[in-house]
């Protein structure tokens, strides 16, 4: 269980990291190493070179830009979790990060690294999708923003080009007064989700739901929005019947086949009850807008 040989390159700026990526075919970015190093120890990954981005101080910033939370590529999960300005703009970040692995792993793992790793059961890709966020990629020809919908393609596959690195991720702030909630089921604390759901709901002055965003992970080959559930909640007053129906509708979104952790039927059952739970919780803290 020892990693294979590799060249170790320290990048001092994101421009240098991007340059090194092009110069060393087969090189990979080393962020927190909490997914990459286990993969190397198992010899599932054998990069020719690692480009360490941990010493790029510019990438260690968490900024609130136009009310949105911009997270640099070297920001640890734990730093984002404990950042009060980020919490104020988008409380879902802290709620979801609490479920990502354990504190010693969050102390080194980065949030952007988790987005790039793109495990289909990972919490933060789902939160990026739920909140309508994007990542910023930097390549030899400059920067581009990639919305979450286009970034996550499949389990552990993103639309990042091989010569690009992700320099930051932006999680939009929540609308004022919006209700929000995150709930997860995993067998043990800190495990990847068997299913997790997040919700953002807004209510108009007439007490009727004006907008609903619901997303889930662990149930498909990538994080997904539950659009049928969203459509069914809008224009309701979230009666018990409305919430029950939302749970039933959520079941359609499970495409994960039976695996070692759960059967499809069990995931459908989990997704239905988690969906009802987050909608109720979100409704409880929602204020009229």
């Amino acid at each position, binding site marked *: 269980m020892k990693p*294979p*040989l590799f060249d170790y390159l320290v990048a001092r700026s994101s421009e240098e990291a991007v340059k090194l990526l092009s110069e060393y075919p087969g090189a990979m970015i080393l962020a927190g190493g909490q997914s990459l190093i*286990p993969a190397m*120890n198992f010899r599932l990954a054998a990069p020719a070179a690692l480009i360490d981005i941990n010493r790029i101080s510019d990438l260690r910033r968490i900024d609130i830009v136009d009310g949105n939370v911009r997270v640099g590529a070297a920001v640890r999960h734990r730093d984002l979790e404990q950042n009060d300005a980020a919490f104020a703009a988008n409380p879902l970040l802290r709620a979801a990060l609490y479920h990502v*692995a*354990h504190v010693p*792993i969050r*102390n*080194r793992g980065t949030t952007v690294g988790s987005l790039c790793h793109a495990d289909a059961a990972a919490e933060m890709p789902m939160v990026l999708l739920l909140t309508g966020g994007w990542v910023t990629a930097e390549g030899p020809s400059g920067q581009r923003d990639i919305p979450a919908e286009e970034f996550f393609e499949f389990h552990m596959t993103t639309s990042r080009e091989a010569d690009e690195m992700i320099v930051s991720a932006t999680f939009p702030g929540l609308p004022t007064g919006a209700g929000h909630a995150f709930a997860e089921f995993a067998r043990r604390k*800190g495990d990847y989700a068997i299913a997790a759901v997040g919700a953002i709901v807004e209510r108009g002055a007439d007490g009727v739901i004006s907008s609903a965003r619901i997303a889930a992970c662990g149930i498909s080959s990538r994080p997904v929005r539950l659009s049928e559930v969203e459509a069914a909640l809008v224009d309701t007053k979230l009666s018990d019947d409305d919430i029950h129906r939302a749970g039933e509708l959520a079941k359609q979104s499970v495409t994960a086949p039976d695996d070692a952790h759960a059967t499809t039927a069990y995931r459908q059952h989990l997704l239905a009850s988690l969906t009802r739970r987050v909608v109720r919780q979100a409704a409880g803290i929602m204020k009229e807008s």
Partner: protein
Amino acid sequence: MSRHEHLERSIPSTSADPKAEVTLTVNGVSVTREVSTRMLLSDFIRHGLRLTGTHVGCEHGVCGACTVMIDGRAARSCLTFAVQADGADIRTIESEAEEDGTLSALQQAFQECHGLQCGYCTPGMIMNIRAHFDSGEELDLSDEGIRELISGNLCRCTGYANIVKAVRRAAELAGKA
């Protein structure tokens, strides 16, 4: 196809083993060493520095036996390369007891409460708890709070009940309860 064909092909084309020099502080002592870039911090601590108190269980981040403190925070030494620790301040289980062997409050509490049996998980447990005690963050000494704190450290012997007691007792001994 020869039986060894696969083996031969996977040998790297260059036999070079890239190395780098690192200088770091371990338990208050500055050390400079040349290491293979692929050397895990856990192996550097155990084999390079002969500090064998840090244990290795799984080498993929799951068991927590290899937990040490890196710049004041608990981290998996099996998921960090030694080269990455250049300039870092590392603390291992060997820093707990006094030079004359007097146990730290945490160690005393584990002993008093029978918080260990085989002891394999104990160094990682203690470094994780130490990091939390020293962080200045609020201590939640409810059963649930303590179980949350040690949730990333697996113990195959004790059933955790006595470890939970030991954490509470250590907080008392350290004047934090």
